[in-house]
């Protein structure tokens, strides 16, 4: 860091706290943090430079810190549209974070990495994981930006406001299902619909009974279309939202701009080990069809386990390309010569058209397997 930099980490929260006397407010000690500042495509040279300056100045994180997915999988050069200079820049970002003491977990599912402890206050900078942690893991976190999550990791604290306070963790609306969603993509659409209600906390009866794979799709969609930070089955909210089958179909149609796709991307959020196993089972006896591609995104940790267990080999033999520590939303896929992408993630469907100009087909995992393999 060059000498005159007046870095004031606490000052970063002045606006959300509505106070320039941030030093006198209450602070929560953190259990851990997740830095969102990772994809070179997102943070660009400005972010790369800040992280490099920090790392070189000797700044270190005070609490266990994991990081979000990178833009690309460095083991598979060029496969997600990355050039040599892009890879070099992405590598430098990762090195800076590592030098600051963060562990390169490279996943948007930090709750699969032993960072979970009920009652813990954390500062996570990944909106889908924030919603997941507040909702299903009894953890406390605000939606941090790249800068605030890094700042929180460096000082080991975060201001006690927002979702760290019980009074803000009460639902504002109750979601009443007039129709029970029948597939992963319908649940993703439900999450998206909840997010579009402009609320921070929503109630959905018996939500905890759903499997993790479904909860990931709901939480990530709700956090992408709006500012939802928590879903809960408790409380008596003043308003309600009635959800019909028609409403879910309309969400899926609104997010689908293509009716055909060359590439299918699954794993937004990252596929867990059980999900990789399930995918391998679905693909038994089938192969990715000629002219089609299936991309599966997972964390380096689940990738390593799946290789040990032979699941990775099953997937690769069926023709699936498995990416470790990368993300279909922030990869530079605008450089690849295909026009549309299929996904079962409403979050991916929300971001991909604006971030990489591809059109999207939002369909269930079952339909992807049927359409893309034979």
């Amino acid at each position: 860091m060059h000498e005159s930099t007046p870095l004031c980490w606490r000052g970063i929260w002045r606006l959300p706290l509505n106070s320039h006397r941030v030093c006198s407010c209450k602070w929560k000690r953190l259990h851990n943090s997740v830095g969102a500042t990772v994809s070179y495509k997102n943070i660009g040279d400005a972010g790369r430079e800040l992280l490099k300056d920090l790392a070189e100045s000797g700044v270190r994180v005070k609490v266990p810190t994991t990081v979000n997915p990178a833009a690309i999988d460095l083991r598979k050069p060029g496969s997600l549209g990355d050039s040599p200079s892009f890879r070099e820049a992405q590598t430098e970002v990762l090195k800076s974070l590592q030098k600051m003491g963060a562990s390169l977990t490279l996943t948007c599912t930090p709750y699969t990495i032993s960072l979970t402890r009920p009652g813990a206050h954390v500062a996570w900078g990944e909106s889908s994981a924030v919603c997941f942690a507040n909702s299903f893991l009894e953890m406390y976190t605000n939606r941090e930006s790249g800068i605030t999550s890094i700042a929180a990791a460096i000082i080991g604290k975060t201001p006690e406001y927002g979702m760290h306070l019980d009074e803000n963790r009460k639902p504002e609306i109750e979601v009443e299902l007039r129709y029970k969603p029948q597939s992963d993509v319908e649940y993703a659409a439900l999450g998206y619909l909840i997010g579009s209600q402009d609320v921070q906390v929503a109630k959905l009866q018996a939500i905890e009974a759903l499997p993790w794979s479904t909860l990931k799709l709901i939480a990530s969609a709700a956090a992408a279309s709006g500012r939802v930070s928590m879903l809960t089955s408790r409380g008596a909210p003043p308003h309600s939202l009635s959800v019909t089958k028609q409403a879910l179909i309309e969400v899926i149609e609104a997010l689908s701009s293509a009716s055909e796709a060359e590439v299918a991307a699954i794993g937004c959020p990252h596929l867990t080990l059980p999900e990789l196993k399930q995918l391998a089972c679905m693909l038994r006896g089938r192969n990715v069809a000629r002219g089609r591609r299936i991309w599966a995104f997972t964390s380096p940790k689940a990738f390593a386990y799946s290789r040990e267990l032979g699941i990775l080999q099953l997937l690769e033999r069926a023709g699936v390309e498995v990416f470790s520590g990368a993300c279909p939303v922030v990869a530079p896929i605008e450089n690849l010569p295909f026009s549309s992408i299929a996904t079962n993630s409403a979050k991916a469907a929300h971001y991909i058209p604006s971030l990489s100009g591809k059109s999207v087909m939002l369909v269930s995992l079952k339909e992807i397997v049927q359409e893309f393999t034979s």
Partner: protein
Amino acid sequence: MTIHGRCIVPGKAKGIPLVLYTSISFLGDVDPETGALLKGSKAGERVSNRILVFTTEAGSTVGAYIIYRLYKRGLAPRAMIAHQAGSIVAAGCALAGIPLVDKIPLSLFRDIEESKLVEVDSGQVTLFK
């Protein structure tokens, strides 16, 4: 003339105003290499060493890094004045130590623009005709 706003990043700075009657997205609207505005009616003018005035913020959170980058190259505004600041500009100004004040009424933007010099001092804006 003195206007009282909300102090978001404290500090004192004086300079020539550059008033945008629009929002600003530091990612996309400002060239991080030169400090020049890339869009809008003031395109081509540089934000560097000016007192930058805008309505509100827009766009990506990466804008905060851009403010830091401008600052490091000596191309940042001396202070910023907004009608309604957001967390992107607040974080960027905090990182770079650039005084930031908001809650300045839009009706006073014309007065600011017509001033030769503007001084920002921890939430207080003074205009020198």
